């Protein structure tokens, strides 16, 4: 049994990673036990034992691409992202909202979505801000 488990672990650790430059990725995970996963910052595999919670938001840039001449990140996607987590001892739960793209981040729909609180209601302060900013938002020429 030990040898089977060891083989499975070895098989899982082998492989190569594909660079994901075409997608915005958000991930959240809970593990009770053993977890082996690739660290997105170091690209190395790491193991965790016990209880672990991890949240990840990956927004690709053109850093290191042939089209980028300046070396750093010359362009990146426009992203609005909010992640709300409940304590596991309070029942747990994950709530995420995202607006991705030049048009989406400036949409009135995105403003409404992000104005809501965790229970889905729009508070008085948020209502006031929305009332003030919506005419300006709607009067702008459409983003291309």
């Amino acid at each position, binding site marked *: 049994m030990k040898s089977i488990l060891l083989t*499975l672990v070895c098989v899982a650790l082998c492989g190569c990673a594909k660079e994901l430059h075409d997608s915005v990725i958000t991930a959240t995970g809970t593990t009770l036990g053993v977890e082996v996963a690739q660290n997105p910052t170091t690209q190395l595999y790491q193991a965790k034992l016990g209880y672990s919670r991890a949240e990840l938001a990956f927004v690709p840039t053109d850093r290191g691409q042939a089209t980028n001449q300046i070396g750093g990140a010359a362009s990146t996607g426009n992203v609005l992202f909010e992640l709300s987590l409940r304590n596991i001892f309070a029942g747990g739960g994950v709530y995420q909202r995202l607006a991705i793209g030049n048009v989406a981040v400036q949409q009135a729909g995105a403003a409404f979505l992000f104005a809501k609180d965790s229970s889905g209601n729009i508070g008085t302060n948020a209502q006031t801000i929305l009332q003030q900013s919506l005419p300006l938002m709607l009067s702008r020429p459409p983003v291309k």
Partner: protein
Amino acid sequence: MALAVCLLCAGCISFNRNGTTHHVIIGFGIVSVNNTNNAAATVIKSQALGLNLSDGAGTKLGLGYSSTTVVKVHTNENVVIEVSDMPGKPLTVNIPK
């Protein structure tokens, strides 16, 4: 003996409800999803008890209890999306128009 019991109990079921495909695996099973379609956004929720191996974003290998929620959106899309994953409730994905 334990291996024989595991093999006897093994089974997979897939069903589609409200446009979402659910895969329930007891024992040993493999879920393969064709991602060559042009979906603007993909939301994956995975819950596993036992050994869980994945080649997608999130947990790669989990032993014990593991739960992951992954949202993937292509950068050339314009998407506003809301994902709620509360205990005891189904995963809800809302894309306001």
